[in-house]
Each structure stands twice: as C-alpha cells, then as structure tokens.
C-alpha cells in the first residue's frame, strides 16, 4: 500500500535513465487487472460488433481518449500526494477558451496562444497550491471552489456569444494530423528497442538478493507483451492512416512525467510525501514547495487536455471541460490502480485506465446503446476495478 521513504534514499543503485519507463514488471496488481479488463472488454465488444476491433475504430478510440488521458495523468500527480484536484475540468475549459480567444479574437499566433493557455493553467495551479499549503485548507475544498470559480471565468472569457469556432490550422492539426510513416516507424522501433534495453540495464542495476544474475531471457520475458503491443499497434496504425500526432504527444508527456516521477529527486519526494508527509518533511523534503509544483503541473496538464479537446471539436464553448470530464479523468487514474490516499500509482496506469473507460464509451456508442447504460457500466467498472485491486493487495499482504 505504501512506498517507504527509504526508497527515495537509495537511488544510487539505479541509473536514472534506466527508470525512464518504469513499467511495472511484477507484483503490480492494478496494472495487470486493468490490462486483463481491457482484453476482456474488447473481446466482448468485438463479439457484439466486429467493427469494434477495426484499426479505424481503435485509431478513433485513441483520439477520443487523448484529452481525458492527459487530464488523468495530471490527476496522478496530486493523487500521489494524497491530494485531489476537482477543478481540472473547469481549468481545461477555461484554458481552452483562453487559447481560442487569444488566437482568434486578439490575433496572437497559435503556438503562442497555446503557451499562454498552458501558462494560465500553471498559474491557476500555483494559486491552488499556495492556498493549500499556506492556509492548510484541504485541496478538496480549494479545488471545489476552483471548479466553480474557473467555470465562471470561462463563461466571462467566452463572452456573451458563448462559443467560438477554431479555424486556426495549427491548433486543429494537433489532433487531426498523422505523422509521416518514416517517423512512425522510427518511433515504434526506437520505443520497442528502448523497452527491451531498459529492462536489461534496469536488471543490472538491481542485484538479485540471492546474488545470482537471472538469465536475460527471464528479464526480458515480462516486457515481451508490451513490446509486442507497441510493434503490432504501431504497424497497424501506420498501415491504416499513420500514427496520430496526438497519440505521440500523449505518450511523450507520459514518458517525460514517468521520468520525472521515478528518476528525479523531485518525483521520489512526491511519492515520499504521499506515503508519509511528516516523515518526508523530517528527512528534509521541502513538502510545501513540491506540493505547489504538483498542483501547478496538474493544472498545466488540465490546460493541455483542454487544448486537445478543443482542437478535436474545432470549437470551444461554454460546456467545454464540463460534464463528466473531471469524473472520468479521476476514475481513469483510480481504475488504473492509482491510490486516492497517496504514494501509489504511475502515469502508465492512468493511461490504461483512460483506455478502459474510453473503450466502454466507444463500444456503447458503436452499439447505439442509451447513454444511461454508459454511466452505469463505467461506474460499475470503477468499483469493480478497485475491489479486485484491493483483494489482490490483501492476498499479497497475507503472503507477506
């Protein structure tokens, strides 16, 4: 359940870059549960409508979950601290509105407008963090206030017209471009090679308790499914219409986050605070600073998610960022196995969780099922995932 603080003090054994992709290899129940869940769900949906497993649909699925997945990864950062950010949906809507207004009404070039929107998110996050740390107000309350506040600001930013078409080709291209095939192949092969190489390097850093070095085959075996997935997925997408740019954006963000969270001091401090804030403080971790930075990152990612959603819809409106976006983002992280109580979870889990939730919505719309079912099923899956995870952890704990 908890990651001991001492873990943050033994990084010397592991070269930081070998943990860039800290994919869980064993003993990580959440990850495996969700993976099995996704396979089962996909099989079921395939049986109900074979078009579900067409490359076109899966490519769509990836585009559909991009925005919520980015929010979900953002949620991981604060969840690791044992905090929460309920304003992510509102912040994503507000920042998307800021981008659209700055770009189309003021005429600022799109890349700058995007930077402005993300900065807007970061500033909001810093404000949340400062109120949480300075005044000791629970993040639940601060960000609940934020949820309403930023929604109001969003309405004000959009003005009385209430909605804006996005016509800028750069913003639109974020979610409608497919990268050239040579680039797609390069990324696919590099990622596969890296996944294998990092497992070997990671293993060399860790001496087995018994002192003997396990064979390279044993080391690589757990990585085979993931590598196979990358290779097959990459090949299929490239042969279809190419790998969507936004998929690479999301994976790049995930990789960067994973690196910072697991290989940099600040990331390990984050886990330490989430496990035991007091102990972390006593061992010299600057708890407040890290908390503020965490809220800033979360809100910055919410902004990025909002930008991607707007790019996909070709519009920003008063409902952008509202509805079930926030709940799905947090549910995605939790279904993936990120603990609400801090200290446990990875960005990859949040990605998988989003994929599972996205698959439900995608499949149910494909079957033209009433939306009432969609919420019910997603809710049931959320609880089921957490229950299975809790059972697995308990069993593991009993085994010692």
């Amino acid at each position, binding site marked *: 359940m908890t990651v001991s603080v001492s873990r943050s003090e033994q990084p010397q054994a592991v070269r930081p870059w070998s943990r860039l992709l800290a994919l869980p290899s064993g003993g990580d129940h959440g990850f495996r549960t969700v993976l099995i869940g996704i396979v089962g769900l996909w099989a079921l949906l395939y049986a109900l409508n074979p078009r579900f497993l067409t490359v076109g649909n899966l490519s769509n699925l990836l585009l559909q979950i991009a925005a919520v997945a980015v929010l979900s990864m953002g949620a991981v950062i604060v969840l690791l601290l044992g905090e929460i950010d309920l304003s992510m949906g509102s912040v994503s809507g507000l920042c998307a509105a800021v981008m659209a207004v700055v770009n189309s*009404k003021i005429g600022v070039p799109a890349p700058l407008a995007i930077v402005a929107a993300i900065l807007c998110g970061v500033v909001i996050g810093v404000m949340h963090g400062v109120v949480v740390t300075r005044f000791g107000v629970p993040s639940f309350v601060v960000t609940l206030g934020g949820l309403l506040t930023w929604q109001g600001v969003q309405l004000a930013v959009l003005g009385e017209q209430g909605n804006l078409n996005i016509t800028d080709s750069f913003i639109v291209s974020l979610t409608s471009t497919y990268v050239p095939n040579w680039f797609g192949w390069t990324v696919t092969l590099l990622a596969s090679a890296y996944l294998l190489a990092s497992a070997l390097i990671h293993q060399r850093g860790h001496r087995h308790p018994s002192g003997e070095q396990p064979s390279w085959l044993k080391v690589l075996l757990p990585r085979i499914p993931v590598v196979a997935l990358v290779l097959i997925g990459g090949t299929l997408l490239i042969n279809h219409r190419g790998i969507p740019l936004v998929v690479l954006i999301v994976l790049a963000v995930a990789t960067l986050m994973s690196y910072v969270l697991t290989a940099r001091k600040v990331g390990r401090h984050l886990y330490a605070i989430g496990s035991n804030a007091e102990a972390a403080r006593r061992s010299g971790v600057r708890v407040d600073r890290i908390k503020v930075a965490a809220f800033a990152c979360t809100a910055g990612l919410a902004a990025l998610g909002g930008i991607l959603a707007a790019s*996909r819809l070709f519009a920003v409106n008063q*409902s952008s960022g509202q509805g079930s976006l926030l709940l799905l983002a947090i549910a995605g992280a939790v279904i993936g196995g990120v603990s609400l109580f801090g200290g446990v979870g990875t960005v990859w889990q949040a990605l998988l969780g989003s994929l599972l939730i996205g698959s439900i919505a995608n499949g149910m719309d494909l079957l033209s099922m009433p*939306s009432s079912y969609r919420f019910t099923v997603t809710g049931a899956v959320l609880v089921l995932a957490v229950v299975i995870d809790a059972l697995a952890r308990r069993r593991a704990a009993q085994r010692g």
Partner: protein
Amino acid sequence: MNRSSLRRGRMVAAAVLITTASVALTACGDSDGGDSGKNASPTIAYLAPETITPRYEAIEKPALTKRLKEICPDCRLITANANSDPSQQLQQAENVIADGAKVIITNPVDSKAAAGIAARAEANDVAVISLGRLIQNANVSWSLTMDTAQAGRDKALSLAEALAEQGHPKGPIVMINGAPGDTDDAKMKQGAEEVFKEKGIEVAMRFDTPQWDPSKAQQEMDQAITALGRDGFFGVYSSNDGMAGGVIAAMKSANIDPRTRPVTGLDNDVAALQRIITGEQYMTEFQDIVDEATKAADVALHLGRGEEVPAQYKEATVNNGKMDVPTYLFEIGPINQKNIKQYFDEEKLDASKVCSGDFVAACQKLGITV
C-alpha cells in the same frame, strides 16, 4: 487514523460552508430599492436554466433587459441561472419572491419540476411567465414558446430536401437527438420522425445525447461512421447547433467533406451561422428569441401592474395538464445558405458577430456585408 478523521470532519464542515455561501450568493441579486405591492414599476425576475446553450445568457437576457429598460426604466430586474439544476431553480424562485419580485419569467430547467415554482409563486401572488418549455400541471399566467413539433418537422424537411438534391432521397441518415428526457426534444424528435416516415427516409442509427454535449455528439458520430462505414449515411439530423458542430468535427476527422452530408441544427448559434456560410452545416432552425424575450417583457409589465394583457399576445392556448395557458408563439423557420442573407438584411441576425475574422470572405461571397 484520528488525524484523518479530524481532517475529514473539517472537510465536511468546509463543504457545508461552501454550499451555504453559494446559496447566500445566489440569494443576492441586484439590491437597489426593493419595494412590494402592485405599483407602476414592479420588480421582475428572470430565471435562466443553464449556461451551456448561448441562447439564455447571450440572447434572452440582454433582449429582456433592453426591452424592460425601454418600457419601464424604474423596474428592477433580478436575474439568476440554475446551471441545469431544477432544485436550484426552485430555490432561486423562492429567493426572488422573498426579494420582492412580482413577476417571474422563467425558462424552466425541467418543465415538470417547475410546477413547484409555479405553486410557490401562486401562493405569494406572483405571476409566472413560462418561456420555451411550458411548465406542466400548474397554474401559469402566460407562455411564450414556439411550435416545437414544427421545429422538428422543419429540420427533417430541410434534410429531406437536401438529401433529394444530392440524389439520396431515402437516406440513410444518422439521428443525433438532445438530452434524454427533455420534453421539448421529445416533441421535435416526434415531429422529425413523422417526416422521415412520410418520405421513406431510413434512420440507420439514433442517439440521445446527455446534456446536449457537443463533444459527446462528436463521439456518437465517430461511432456511427465506424458502424455504418464512411458511405453508410448521407445526412445527419442533429437536434441543435452545438451538437451539429460535434457531428461536423467527427466527419472532418474521418476525412468526409461535411459539404457532401447535410447536417441540421437549431438555436442559430453564431458558430453555426458561420458554418452555414462556409457550407459545412446545411441549416439551423431559426428561433426569434429576441422577439420572444421582448414580448415576455411586455407581458411581464402588464401582469406586474395588474393590468389586462392585450389580445395581441395571445395567439393560442396550450393545455399544460391543469389549464389552458394563454400562449404567444414566436417565429421559427429554417435558415440555410440560400436565405441567410435575408435574415441579416432584416436584422434578425447580427452580421457583425457572424462575419468576422476568417469568415469575412465567405460572407462576401454570399453578398453579406457588415
């Protein structure tokens, strides 16, 4: 353990505090000169249902405010928005009654639940004017609405016409409806389905869209394209403009030129009018909201002053289950590329908002100048 329960306690307390604060906030509208009694300048309240559709905050409220200022400069107008929450709207009604409102003009979130609003108003001798969705099973002083089923038929007829022009008079089409349970949308759906049946148009897939959410509509359309194939549909009935935007975005991502698949809408949103001008959206059903709001202000003043409402405001009566409500029907009709110029010329639509930025050239092509 102890600490965490302490913290949780504090959280609950804070949550309660926030709720109370927000109630207090919604309770205070403008607070200049609140007197009661039937006088020459009664206090009037406008309760909007939500902030997602621009119709209420962007058109209805400004038009109402403007008209009231013209006909009764001393009247006080209190406004509130329920953010799609029927119980919040009831609370807002209670608040404005307490604040001295003599007339409540409401666009109910939920036309059945709003019977509670009408009952509270009646008990306090406050008149109720229902805009849009008619309040059901209650005493309502006046109603200003459109022929909702006709709006559905208009959309479907436009679509049928466009399908015939493009050589696919029988469809098939995809139907993207509004929020499940929305009584207005149900009427439009029914009107549209009648037309489809009449014309023999096949509806290949139907969706209801919670909260009329455009991004949800986009996903529905993504999935419809996947299920039917890119050539498996020739048009889309979308119940409003926001969702039409989502539908068109889905087509674009599937490399389908939206100009080749007519899409309908409703609300005359600026964004939709721009899409009509560029040809991406086929039509939107025009609703003369300015006329509706202006007439609502007139009726409200008469009712607030305790006067007889002139006959010109009573074009029909509509039974709401309890009474025949005197009703004013505002103008509706399809706007498409062919007739949009006329709406601008008659100043029913504001060209300065629509023909800006990237859309100036497309407007000029249709002869529309700002």
